[in-house]
């Protein structure tokens, strides 16, 4: 796996002016290889969601570049940007916020397909496929999100992201609002989808155990900087940066030893 799909190069994101100038991201480098899962861990305000927004080209960074599949996409606009957006999708923490309550499940999943210019029978086929892929029954297509459980809603949000067959998906705390048993189902689903499609994930979470379970590599962020990077095993058993050690020591242990 040496094929770099996403390459974040020296990205800095500043907010504010003058004395209140603040670096939300400070010279961040991050490479994600095709087909792998990179876990991004850090606490509130460390810049992980700002980095996600930069990667999704939702905000142009102050400096630095986002390269995707070998091409600099930082300044993409218009139709080139729309074409790029089919390749990169996002799943958010709270499906209640990301799904429109007035849309049926089928319409929610069809929307990004329509935006990608896919219509007619092909669109209907892709919606059915996506519903199958996330393990929901076909008759869910006519249901509304309030009729579904939290876990089913998150499956719909994942189906919506997967319907356009993206190469890269940013998952921002996708299981943090779910019960642990439902979290297990969603994590299993994400692993299955990756095995079947070869999709690449950036998995953002504050939960080190979840990241360790899912990710091939783990990146730890603090105050806008990447402070440590390694395999889940390395990070958990031999953390080098003091902040990583603090994070690990703060993790609740199942029972006192």
């Amino acid at each position, binding site marked *: 796996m040496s094929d770099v799909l996403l390459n974040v190069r020296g990205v800095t994101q500043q907010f504010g002016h003058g004395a209140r100038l603040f670096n939300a991201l400070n010279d961040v480098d991050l490479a994600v290889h095709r087909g792998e899962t990179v876990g991004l861990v850090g*606490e509130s305000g460390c810049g992980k969601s700002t980095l996600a927004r930069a990667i999704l080209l939702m905000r142009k960074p102050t400096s630095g570049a986002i390269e995707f599949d070998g091409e600099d996409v930082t300044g993409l606009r218009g139709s080139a940007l729309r074409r790029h957006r089919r390749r990169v999708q996002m799943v958010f923490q709270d499906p209640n916020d990301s799904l429109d309550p007035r849309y049926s499940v089928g319409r929610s999943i069809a929307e990004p397909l329509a935006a990608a210019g896919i219509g007619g029978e092909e669109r209907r086929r892709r919606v059915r496929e996506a519903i199958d892929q996330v393990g929901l029954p076909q008759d869910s297509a006519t249901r509304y999100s309030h009729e579904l459980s939290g876990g089913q809603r998150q499956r719909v949000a994942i189906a919506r992201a997967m319907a356009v067959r993206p190469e890269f998906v940013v998952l921002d705390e996708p299981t943090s609002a779910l*019960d*642990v048993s439902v979290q297990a189902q969603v994590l299993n689903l994400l692993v299955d989808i990756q095995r079947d499609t070869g999709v690449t994930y950036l998995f953002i979470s504050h939960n080190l*155990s979840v990241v*360790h379970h*899912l990710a091939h590599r783990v990146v730890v962020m603090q105050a806008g900087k990447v402070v440590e990077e390694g395999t889940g095993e390395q990070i958990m058993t031999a953390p080098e940066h003091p902040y990583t050690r603090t*994070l690990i*020591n703060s993790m609740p242990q*199942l*029972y006192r030893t």
Partner: protein
Amino acid sequence: MSGADSLTIDGLSIAYGDGPTAVSDICLRVRRGEIVGVIGESGSGKSSVALAALGLLPDSARIDSQQMLINGVEVSDFSETQWAAVRGVEASMVFQEPMSALNPCMRIGAQIEEVLHIHGLADKRTAKARALEMLRLVQMPDPERRLRYYPHQLSGGQRQRVVIAIAMAANPSLLVADEPTTALDVTVQAEILDLIRSLRSETNMGVLFISHDLGVIGQLCDRVYVMYRGRVVESGTTSEVLGSPRHPYTQALLESIPRPSVTVRAPLAVIPADNRFADSPIYLEEAS
């Protein structure tokens, strides 16, 4: 301080409106100086039990209990007026979201003093001194200055410390905490758990700690009750219940968590949506 248990609940059942039973036949006990966990997933009834312990269930709730004692006093038939004299004095509650528990337009010092004024427990000067003492007790940095702060000027962890200070101001015998660290970062969560542990030792209050997080419960609690679909399915010391769970639901719950001993990316155990664990025998171990 009396030697009675902080909380005794015997045979508590709750239903909402004409709906089915949300909680059935709960027996639960929190001794002085003990931290007792209630663990369960959404809809298990754990928050209903927490609210019942403070007489905070809505009017639509139909409550049936054989016995409910707070610090040795039977409260089952209390009126709202009687409850008002209990809450904040004998028993206090800490919720998940500190910002919604605090008044955004009031300095935090005044919010701590308010509890003492409302219950007529202190005059103005004593209340002021007590507010400062409470901020010190919850290990607020620079407490003299923080007394004059508004909630928005504090971090999430500091806000939760203020909520705990308010809850503790009248020195209650019972603290009910419903997911008090769920909205906090892990490093801040670790600090708040340390704080609850040290407050328990300093004041000898009993703590009923509600959480969905097995790790948090495991780290903090002396004993634990596992709730599933409105029932307690297992209880015992934390090391018994989490270390060698006997009920199939507790076992499945523990196996659904990602943990270092599970092979990376291997399927995690999934709890089926059917009611199967409710049909299996319930081993209720009343802790001695």
